[in-house]
């Protein structure tokens, strides 16, 4: 029965071909450092899932943000777990992505024909840092408030356009409700959309070009 259903679907969707292309592709002899890309992908998916769950209760306004998070932590069953995974997963994701980048750098895996894969990876790292910066404000506690004050102030030191960047980040001169809601929008819509598209390109290129072997004496 299950086999019949599968072959019916496979004939129409080409599932086996997708599986063979993505999971059964040929790879050179590799080591554990080569698992960090997949680890980052997994952590990214977890961030997406736990983030969607947090948005069930979280409210991005100055009068409710802090209280809604307190409610998630104390009033909702397993709220502490969902937020905990999102909180610690965020730091862990930056770590795995960064070590993934170091692996690619030291093995020279960014070279021809994989330069564009590297470029999309840089885009992903910057977007992940953007997610970190915008997400940090959302709890609207003292730490997030002052971290964003300082962070946007640093952006304001750019010559000539600094003041413009600072105002654009904050949505005005001061850190306010406008800052919170635009950081929220960036955090749940704009950065995720960019990341989704870039991850798609990144994975497409990894599958299309294959991964490079560990450099030996000849290379």
């Amino acid at each position: 029965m299950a086999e019949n259903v599968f072959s019916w679907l496979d004939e129409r969707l080409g599932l086996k071909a997708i599986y063979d292309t993505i999971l059964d592709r040929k790879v050179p002899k590799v080591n554990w450092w080569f698992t960090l890309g997949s680890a980052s992908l997994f952590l990214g998916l977890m961030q997406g899932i736990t983030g969607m769950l947090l948005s069930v209760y979280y409210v991005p306004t100055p009068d409710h943000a802090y209280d809604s998070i307190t409610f998630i932590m104390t009033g909702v069953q397993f709220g502490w777990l969902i937020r905990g995974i999102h909180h610690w997963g965020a730091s862990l994701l930056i770590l795995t992505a960064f070590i993934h980048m170091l692996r690619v750098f030291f093995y020279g895996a960014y070279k021809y024909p994989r330069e564009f894969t590297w470029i999309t990876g840089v885009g992903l790292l910057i977007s992940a840092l953007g997610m970190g910066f915008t997400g940090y404000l959302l709890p609207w506690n003292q730490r997030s408030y002052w971290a964003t004050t300082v962070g946007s102030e640093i952006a304001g030191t750019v010559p000539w356009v600094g003041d413009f960047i600072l105002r654009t980040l904050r949505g005005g001169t001061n850190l306010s409700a406008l800052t919170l809601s635009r950081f929220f929008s960036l955090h749940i819509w704009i950065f995720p959309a960019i990341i989704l598209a870039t991850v798609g390109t990144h994975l497409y290129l990894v599958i299309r070009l294959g991964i490079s072997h560990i450099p030996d004496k000849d290379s």
Partner: protein
Amino acid sequence: MPSKYRSPVMDRRSFVKIVTASLGSMMAAIVGLPVIQYFISPALGKTGSDDWISLGSLDNFPFDLPTLFNFNITQVNGWERSSMSYGAFVLRKEGQDPIVFSDVCTHLSCRVNWDEENKEFHCPCHNAFFDANGEVVSGPPPRPLDQYEIRLDGDQLFIHLTEG
């Protein structure tokens, strides 16, 4: 690989597949089951009320005219204290205890109004009509208007508000 290392039961690939699938399912369950709790726990919490509400002196309510009394109850929903508004129609008849109707339509919980001209309660949402005694005249409601339990303390009228 020398044949003495080969399992007679399964090859390496199927072993890896089974281990991956079972570890994956376990992890999905560990995260997935709390997620269900996360979603439904506010629905299970008690937010109901059980209070006697004072409607003041009976003299405020004329005979044979359903009269609306509005009151607000403060409730904590999640992280927010909100004021919920209620309405009760008090109907007094000579020589009888007053009857207090809830103004919530028994169809789909819109609020009914008293139409003095036709002597009927009217619910505007789906054109439902109740007579002065709360009985359904026409429209979709499945039962008469709900009545509050009342208590009289001298000439002071109280109703019993229970919810949740």
